[in-house]
């Protein structure tokens, strides 16, 4: 562990030195500057971009508009100064390709669409932007009812007691490695959305499975998540490898049992025969 930390510190130190040394000039090819996003920004794109930003950019650039770092600290990407001096195309290029120095490119880690989502998110901080993320974000309540009849999972979305319609709900079931999507359903005017539990899905040894219900667009409707255990899955039959008669098990394979006792008993019968013969010597003395 200690070694790892030292290696880390050395690499980090080198990176720091390197970054100061080559805080390269931004060489943005001419064509890139005027590049436009493939589509108009939507609320959902900006919301997605926000999530991506928090995951990938925040560590250096902080939450937009909240920082007052001095150069050479990374730029506040939500600042008026930044947004007015760059076009969408420039921001895209800077994010996607980086400058080969302190700002690494995200090409290969994020798709072009994802980077555009980030650009759209930053666009919401521009003066005159029509998208107001604060007003569209909601924190809905989520309830789940199970209907034995037809094995239906019913989700109810409400906003402060009022049914929330037109909200996509993601239904999934927990597996060994990750979750398996059962379906996505939109809530109706009453806030209801439902999917059926398949009748051929394997569960555990007693037929239990854990279902997970959450909003498909968590950026917009909140991160509520409901998990419930249902007994609708098929019973899983897993043979316990150590319970069978096998070389690796606790019960001896029959062929081995037969050979072992066959040989051992055979040999000991010979020994017992000889012992009886010895005892017979006295009897036949005359």
């Amino acid at each position, binding site marked *: 562990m200690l070694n790892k930390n030292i290696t880390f510190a050395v690499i980090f130190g080198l990176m720091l030195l390197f970054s100061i040394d080559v805080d390269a000039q931004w060489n943005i090819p001419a064509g890139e500057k005027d590049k436009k996003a493939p589509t108009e920004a939507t609320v959902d794109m900006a919301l997605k971009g926000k999530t991506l930003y928090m995951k990938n950019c925040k560590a250096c650039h902080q939450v937009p508009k909240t920082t007052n770092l001095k150069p050479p600290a990374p730029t506040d990407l939500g600042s008026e100064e930044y947004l007015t001096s760059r076009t969408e195309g420039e921001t895209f290029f800077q994010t996607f390709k980086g400058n080969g120095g302190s700002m690494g490119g995200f090409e290969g880690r994020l798709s072009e669409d994802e980077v555009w989502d980030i650009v759209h998110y930053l666009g919401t901080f521009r003066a005159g932007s029509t998208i107001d993320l604060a007003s569209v974000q909601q924190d809905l309540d989520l309830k789940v009812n199970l209907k034995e009849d037809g094995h239906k999972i019913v989700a109810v979305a409400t906003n402060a007691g009022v049914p929330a319609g037109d909200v996509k709900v993601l239904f999934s079931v927990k597996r060994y490695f990750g979750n398996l999507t059962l379906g996505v359903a939109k809530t109706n005017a009453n806030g209801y959305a439902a999917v059926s539990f398949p009748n051929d899905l394997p569960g555990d040894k007693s037929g239990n499975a854990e279902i997970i219900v959450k909003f498909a667009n968590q950026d917009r409707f909140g991160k509520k998540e409901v998990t419930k255990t249902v007994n609708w899955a098929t019973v899983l039959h897993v043979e316990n490898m150590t319970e069978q008669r096998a070389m690796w098990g606790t019960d*001896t394979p029959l062929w081995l049992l037969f050979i072992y006792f066959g*040989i051992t008993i055979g*040999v000991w019968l010979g*020994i017992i*025969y000889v012992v009886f013969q*010895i005892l*017979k*010597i006295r009897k036949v*003395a005359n």
Partner: protein
Amino acid sequence: MSEKKSLNKIVTDLTKPIKNHRWFMLWILFLLSVMGFGLFGWITQLTEGLGSTALTDYISWGLYISGFIFFVATALIGMLISSVLGLLGIKWITPIARIAELIAVGFAMWAGLIIVFDMGRPERLLNVFIHGRLQSPITWDVTVVMTYVTISILLYLLPLIPDMPFLKKTMTDAPKWKQKIYSILSFGWVGSPEQYKIIKRSIKVLAVLIIPVALAIHTVTSWLFAMTPRIGWDSTIFGPYYVTGAFVAGGAAVMIAMYVFSRTYNLKEYITDFHFDKMGKLLVLLMLVYLYFNINEYIVPGYKMKQGDDIHILNLFVGHNAKLFWSVQICGMILPLILFLFKRMRKPLPAMIISIAIVIGAFFKRYIITVPTLEHPAFPADNVPAEYLIYWPNWVEWSITMMAIAGAILIVTILAKLFPIMPIWEVAHEEGITNEEMNEFEV
């Protein structure tokens, strides 16, 4: 083997050494003091745990298990001489068959005990019987060791029975307990034709029975290693490789015992140069077969140098175990093999000295088989102290192993003091003395 010996002479010659106690007590005292030191070592090990030995997590089979294979190996000679050669009707083994059987009994019994010494919690041996899985070679080994000891004891005991009347008649001034033993072990022997029939048939049954059991005991011992996929042990010829090696070790041990008994018991007339010559030739044959298996065991993987194997093979050939490896191969096998080709070297004294080299070589050969493989753990050895990966036994293991060797010799010594070292009746038969003459024997 010149002129015929009289029954009276045979009985006198063979019973005299067991009446004469000169040097005997001193020898016993020596063996007991060696064992006493070993006992001290064992008590140290029991109180302080296996940590007091040089054994580690990685090298957990050190001198003890090497010693165990050596003991089992040496014990195997009883089967070859008294059973295989006996059934083949080879006559010259008559005076040495009992010596071979004595070595078999003594060493097989202590082989079982060495396993106990290798355990930090010996009382857990019971768990083998309570929870033992038949899938494990350890269970097979425990079974076969017990069976072999039993058959060896019977095979030692059976030819003793017709000797008992001679002992009763000649050992009149022996202590009462001794007389009692002779009386019990005679099982009412009077020498009737019916009794001879029984004894000969029983010996034959055991002689046949012991061949597969003896092969099994050493094959299973080899399987304790070969049933694992570890480098150096993962070999298909380990069974026969061990068995032939065992015959070499046991044959040499018999040669030493022959020399010691023929000299101290004054039996040069019975164990003659002829017998040493024959044993020498037998050892040449055995060592040739053993050499052949050695070539297969080391040259074949050495030629291929498979990844993983190469570390092990190079370690033995040129690495830190090379000195020991080449010493045992050359001094314990190749040189003795060449020397025994010369008639002069098959005379008693040189034969005995060469045999000592073979036995010492055989002991360390087992060490070479056991330890170097363990010095290369099969799993990644991270953050392990360097000294954990190199093994050399400390005084605890040495003293306990010495106790085992002294203990086996003690059994041989005591039995050779209680009973004649050769079967009187069989020697008499060889000299053309009839059963009737023997039955009528009086001092």
